[in-house]
């Protein structure tokens, strides 16, 4: 098994995972989406809301704001010792928000949420929550807790978690007449012309769409497209709660824990 990072900028990560089976790659992809815990606002106490929007709508919008997550300090409520419905300091973070529009129209932003612990704060500060007209006021207290994407999409740490097989594109230069149709029709610019013959320049961009073969005038086409069943190109796009690389690490830890529990159960049966 080998990991090569292709690209890492801001919240997104592209890497190649080779030497694994498709079910294994898929397990990682699905755990990243559904089982890596993140913080999200779950309970809101409204003190004053004279805005044009209902309490429930504002609460829903607050829930979707991604919060930076610290998995070492906080516990999932179901794993916390407090066992209380409302949570304790180990499984809950509170936020306050108090915005009043005086004379002018005023926008309430996600950045107006003031956290009790600065480690858990809105990852994106400029999300508009509601627009207030003059003399309108929004005052509330919000409680965030850890949760999983399984339960609600607001706890999903990624907006994209995908993989594709590593494409293999080959051209038999002896049979090719160099018409250049494959260069013209490839939507991902996989080919380029060199010395009047097409060459593969961007193999990794190929989506296996076969458009080049469909437009090739030679029958059978000198272009051969296949994929490596043991190599995967992953693309992970975090919402901002954690860096994408951290998500992969956490997902692998969860997968390890799950496998371990299966092994232990199996031993008991035997």
């Amino acid at each position: 098994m080998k990991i090569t990072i292709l690209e890492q900028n801001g919240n997104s990560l592209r890497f190649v995972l080779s030497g694994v089976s498709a079910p294994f790659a898929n397990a990682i992809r699905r755990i990243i989406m559904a089982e890596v815990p993140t913080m999200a606002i779950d309970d809101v106490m409204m003190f004053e809301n004279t805005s044009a929007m209902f309490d429930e709508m504002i609460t829903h919008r607050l829930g979707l704001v991604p919060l930076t997550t610290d998995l070492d300090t906080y516990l999932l409520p179901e794993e916390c010792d407090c066992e209380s419905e409302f949570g304790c300091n180990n499984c809950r973070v509170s936020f306050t928000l108090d915005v009043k529009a005086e004379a002018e129209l005023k926008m309430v932003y996600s950045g107006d949420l003031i956290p009790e612990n600065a480690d858990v704060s809105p990852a994106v500060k400029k999300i508009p929550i509601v627009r207030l007209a003059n003399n309108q006021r929004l005052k509330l207290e919000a409680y965030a807790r850890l949760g999983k994407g399984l339960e609600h999409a607001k706890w999903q740490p990624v907006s994209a978690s995908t993989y594709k097989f590593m494409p293999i594109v080959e051209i038999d230069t002896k049979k090719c007449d160099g018409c250049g149709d494959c260069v013209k029709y490839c939507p991902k610019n996989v080919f380029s012309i060199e010395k009047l013959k097409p060459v593969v320049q961007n193999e990794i961009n190929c989506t296996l769409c076969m458009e080049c073969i469909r437009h090739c005038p030679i029958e059978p086409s000198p272009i051969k497209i296949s994929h490596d069943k043991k190599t995967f190109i992953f693309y992970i796009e975090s919402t901002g709660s954690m860096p994408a690389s951290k998500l992969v690490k956490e997902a692998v830890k969860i997968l390890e824990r799950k496998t371990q529990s299966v092994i232990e159960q199996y031993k008991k049966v035997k």
Partner: protein
Amino acid sequence: MIPVRCFTCGKVIGDKWEAFKKRVSEGEETKKVLDDLSIERYCCRRIFISHVEVMEELLKYVKNSKNTKNMIT
């Protein structure tokens, strides 16, 4: 109000709305603005190009608001 996240993929898009609105109203090409703001997928792009800001209309009817001077309250 602009949705906080894309309905389909869950990407946070709310924070990019104000920049989008400003640049498009200044005459920039929509496609270029969306590419610049790194809104890549068409699920997210359609939210931007089809969004209507109803809140602005609603706020005109707030009593004693500066913006309602010329309106019947």
